[in-house]
């Protein structure tokens, strides 16, 4: 086994990994609640809560929102990886849609609704790039 002081630390830090899809377990443990206590507060069984925390099952929307309210965190904090993934996919589709709108406007006579849509899509894209670093 290698020893850390002998390793080049700079080389170790060149790698980076993505955020986890869910941080429910982290925030529950930081709040000091046990699994059973949190499950009682959320009105679900502790076995189900354990499955949601360990990503064995997908978290239902009422439970996800309940957890955020209970631990006092936002959805992007509690589901950082999932939020980033959704933002990334949505930004990709918005870019495709914007290109399509631009093509339609450049081909024919630009209507008011098309230009309004284009400005809305551009604003959403800018918002998404600001919302996620």
């Amino acid at each position: 086994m290698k020893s850390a002081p002998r390793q080049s630390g700079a080389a170790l830090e060149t790698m980076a990994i993505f955020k986890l899809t869910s941080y429910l377990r982290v925030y529950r443990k930081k709040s000091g609640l046990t699994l059973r206590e949190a499950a009682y507060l959320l009105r679900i069984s502790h076995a189900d809560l354990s499955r949601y925390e360990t990503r064995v099952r997908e978290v239902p929307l009422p439970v996800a929102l309940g957890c955020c309210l209970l631990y006092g965190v936002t959805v992007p904090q509690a589901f950082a990886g999932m939020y980033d993934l959704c933002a990334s996919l949505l930004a990709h589709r918005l870019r495709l849609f914007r290109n399509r709108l631009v093509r339609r406007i450049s081909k024919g006579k630009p209507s008011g609704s098309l230009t309004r849509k284009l400005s809305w899509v551009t604003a959403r894209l800018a918002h998404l790039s600001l919302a996620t670093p």
Partner: protein
Amino acid sequence: MKHLRLADRRILALDLHPRSFGYAVFENADLLDWGLRKWPSRQFENTAGRKLCRLLNLWQPMRVVVREGASRREYAMVEAVARDANVPVLGVRRAAVQSAFRSSKRPSRFDVARLVAERYPELGLRLPAVRKLGHAEPFQLRMFNAAATGIAFLRISDHAADGGEK
């Protein structure tokens, strides 16, 4: 995938013992998870590996950091499980862990545990009382040892990274 945020580093720190281990998971300087896992002595091969495997699957660390001093059997188990999960294993010397918490005198394990609990107040609830003469070492101290190992590793890699930049 421009929008995917990167967690610079996520590590799983372990303090290995013959029938148990303490663990702490860090993401950058944030403590994500901590705890203890134990198993009956005859079920080492199956149970210990399975418990570690679950932790690796759950937290997907980029490094497993082990406090040196455990027996070869536990090291071998960690290395085998980590190899299957494609995660490198690194050892941190006890001296390195102690020097990360040293002020003037050489700190005891209880001093280190107290300093860890000061840095991460969420661990304070599980801080064991100082051992009295003739009493066994508190089981929960392993968790603090693991957290101290993680902190020491992060400090070592930060220093090395700073040196590399200069």
